[in-house]
């Protein structure tokens, strides 16, 4: 163990928790001061073990830990997959392509060949919850009851609603035998596994012991690679390694994982730089050059995200004219925007990045072409000699996936000003904007809006469906644009009824290509999901996903 005297002199190895605090110890004075601070700290503090990874999240509070994490995808990333498993998990191993599904608590699943609404899941055996009880078929039923069965005593009235997007397609569910369950969809739906990948399995025994979902969050029991040790609201979630994790390749190398909500980008940055955390999510683009210069690792990977202008395609708006939307897509200098973002994004040409298997072969290629944009605008009757195009745009102040919305919005505004387009922004908080998007833009009494500026995940085809299918207009889905192309709708419907993967993927790619050409949105950039890691964090391989794997990470002493 460490020699306390050496430590006091600032010479010995210091306790992990204090590492990085006194990096600049050139002057004798500061050695003395830090020695005093250290001494006092050592005397008073509980020893924190090595192999602790402390993460600064962007959320404003700790995500809920009861198996229905809030705070969007970031909640799933930190309070979802590390603690729990779903029947179907995400595969983090193939980091060279966009992540796809992998077996979780179900080892295998398939559609009933005789009933295209009936899915059969084979359950993994020998899995134990954190409370020591075994995972069984009954538990799956119990967990779906939590979400869907309002008559069940443990129905989670408060939280189930927020997961309707993932569960509403499930009509009923039944236990076949101890290792098999069946899920029934309302209509034939080949994408079900994507949806239920967010339905996490928690221990009924632990719930029975605690008695209500509110308190369950303080001591939840899942089956995931980490166990919850302590939840301090608005401060931290402390996780410890689950040595008995069923996937032996993914038993965490870390001993502890501490998650702290630090919504303010600058505070997050200061916390990383002062050694209070080892890892921050979404470092502000302007801070990246400085971080790199100071030896921090910046990791980026594309993932299915798009930061876009959702255009109001209804008749009320000038932007319902396709030529205008094409002009907007051609008239945007995305390269400069990417430069402003410090390379944390790539230019977008459609809802999905062109490296994705679903990209397809669209005919429009949105490169920066202001002349073409001007010509298109002229054709539509705007520009010199014609009308001035004026757009009312709603922009959020922040929010998961929105990157740095305000400077980016200002950039777009400037870019369009050069085309003679006037944009007027209404800045709102994210929640308000989500509210806006849950209502049709053309409903009576709605304030006029041409565009909503939103960065969002389109992680899988179901989300594509919710954004671009004609039936997905609010309140059914997220198609605020009221985009409707019968061809796209037909392709998607067909794809979702198809249980042949190859055919399905091709249909989706065709639909995607059509959407690109119709340009219901202005596709701006795909985020590269940047995170900044202290130099001592090793072994992290960023997946091309909204979710990430913390089990392979180590932290150097």
């Amino acid at each position, binding site marked *: 163990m460490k020699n306390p005297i050496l430590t006091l002199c600032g010479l010995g190895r210091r306790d992990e928790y204090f590492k990085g*605090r006194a990096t*600049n110890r050139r002057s004798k004075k500061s050695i003395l001061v830090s020695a005093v601070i250290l001494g006092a700290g050592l005397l008073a503090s509980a020893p924190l073990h090595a192999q602790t990874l402390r993460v600064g999240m962007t959320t404003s509070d700790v995500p809920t830990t009861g198996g229905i994490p809030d705070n969007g995808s970031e909640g799933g990333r930190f309070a979802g997959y590390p603690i729990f498993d779903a029947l179907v998990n995400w595969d983090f191993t193939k980091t060279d392509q966009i992540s796809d599904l992998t077996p979780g608590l179900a080892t295998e699943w398939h559609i009933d060949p005789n009933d295209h609404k009936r899915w059969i899941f084979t359950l993994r055996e020998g899995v134990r919850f954190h409370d020591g009880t075994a995972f069984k078929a009954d538990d799956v039923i119990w967990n779906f009851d939590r979400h869907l069965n309002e008559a069940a005593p443990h129905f989670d009235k408060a939280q189930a609603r927020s997961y309707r997007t993932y569960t509403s397609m499930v009509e009923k569910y039944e236990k076949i035998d101890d290792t098999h369950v069946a899920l029934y969809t309302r209509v034939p739906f080949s994408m079900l596994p994507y949806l239920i990948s967010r339905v996490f399995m928690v221990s009924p025994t632990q719930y029975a012991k605690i008695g209500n979902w509110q308190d369950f969050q303080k001591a939840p029991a899942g089956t995931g690679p980490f166990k919850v040790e302590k939840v301090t609201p*608005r401060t*931290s979630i402390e996780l410890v390694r689950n040595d008995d994790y069923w996937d032996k390749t993914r038993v965490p190398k870390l001993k502890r994982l501490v998650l702290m909500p630090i919504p303010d980008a600058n505070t997050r940055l200061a916390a990383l730089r002062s050694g209070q955390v080892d890892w921050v999510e979404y470092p502000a683009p302007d801070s990246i050059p400085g971080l790199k210069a100071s030896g921090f690792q910046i990791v980026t990977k594309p993932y299915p995200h798009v930061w876009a202008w959702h255009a109001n395609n209804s008749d009320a708006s000038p932007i319902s004219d396709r030529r205008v939307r094409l002009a907007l897509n051609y008239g945007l200098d995305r390269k400069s925007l990417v430069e402003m973002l410090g390379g944390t994004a790539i230019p977008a040409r459609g809802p999905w990045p062109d490296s994705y298997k679903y990209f397809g072969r669209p005919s429009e290629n949105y490169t920066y072409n202001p002349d073409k944009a001007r010509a298109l605008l002229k054709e539509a009757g705007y520009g010199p000699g014609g009308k001035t195009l004026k757009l009312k745009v709603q922009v959020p102040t922040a929010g998961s996936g929105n990157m740095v919305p305000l400077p980016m919005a200002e950039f777009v505004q400037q870019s369009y000003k050069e085309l003679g387009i006037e944009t007027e922004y209404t800045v709102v908080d994210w929640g308000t904007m989500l509210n806006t998007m849950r209502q049709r833009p053309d409903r009576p009494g709605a304030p006029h809006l041409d565009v909503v500026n939103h960065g969002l995940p389109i992680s899988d085809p179901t989300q594509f469906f919710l954004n671009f299918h004609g039936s997905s207009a609010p309140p059914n889905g997220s198609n605020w644009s009221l985009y409707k192309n019968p061809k796209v709708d037909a392709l998607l419907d067909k794809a979702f009824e198809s249980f042949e993967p190859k055919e399905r993927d091709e249909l989706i790619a065709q639909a995607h290509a059509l959407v690109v050409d119709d340009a219901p949105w202005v596709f701006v950039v795909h985020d590269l999901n940047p995170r900044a890691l202290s130099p001592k964090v090793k072994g992290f391989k960023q997946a091309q996903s909204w979710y990430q794997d913390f089990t392979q990470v180590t932290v150097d002493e």
Partner: protein
Amino acid sequence: MLLYTLRRILYAVPIALAVSLVCFMLVHIAPGDPIDAILPPDASAETVALVRKDYGLDKPLPVQFGLWLAHVVQGDFGRSIANRRLVADELVSAASKTFILATTAASLGFVIGCILGGLAGAFRGTLIDRAAVSFAVGGVSVPHYWLGMVLVIIFSVTLGWLPSMSAGPGDWAWDWLHIRHLILPAITLSVIPAGLVTRTVRGVVVEILSQDFMTTLRGKGLRRLMLTVHVMKNAAPTALAVMGLQLGYLMGGSILVETVFAWPGTGMMLNQAIFQRDIPVLQGTTLVLAMIFVALNLLVDLIQTALDPRMRRT
């Protein structure tokens, strides 16, 4: 004295009621139906009606206020819309964190202010005076959220001496592990009270030193130390009053500093509640902070009266 105390406490009751009315009305000055803040817009008509009934929003405003007040008096502030946790539980932990920060900052400001103000007053017109006054003006003029950032860069990032954020791991304890988290935010927050107390104490000391009785005291041959005791006792009621009020202001005004330092107190809670339109939290936090302020005002008045024999007869 007793009569005065009683009267003063009685007078605080209508104030407290009116304050809670203002907090209650906060929801209703917000544009739109408060139900919009509670439910997603796609909620069905029955759900809306149900929730409206649940929250008592179908009743006339005065009745709603009465119901709300009845709950609040029993410590029931409802549940947060954002995270479903009990607002009362959240408030207890957040308010205690803010209280720790605010009292530390106020005490720090008080000590600095008394020393600087006392010196400035005693050495009026000298370099010490000018330095102290400059500090005081600087203190009340500096945007403290900006100062916080600068302090973080110097002491956390460059020197690496102190943490830049949060209140330390787990629950609060008065050990170095946690106290080190307190230092920077407390210093940042103390700048304003330090400035104000410096100004006030300087003014009071100058005033006291110009009083005839100071000449009397010198005429009795008292030494400097004894003179200081007299000055202090005379200055105490005013200084304490300023300090008490400042504590109240800091409790309610720490929102910016808490945001910069991610200090998990009421300020951060309020900030989140505002942006999540979490009305129960907004109402509850505002009410509790305002009530603390009312109580502090009352306490300051009473202490001031107790300390100043001239006021006791009222």
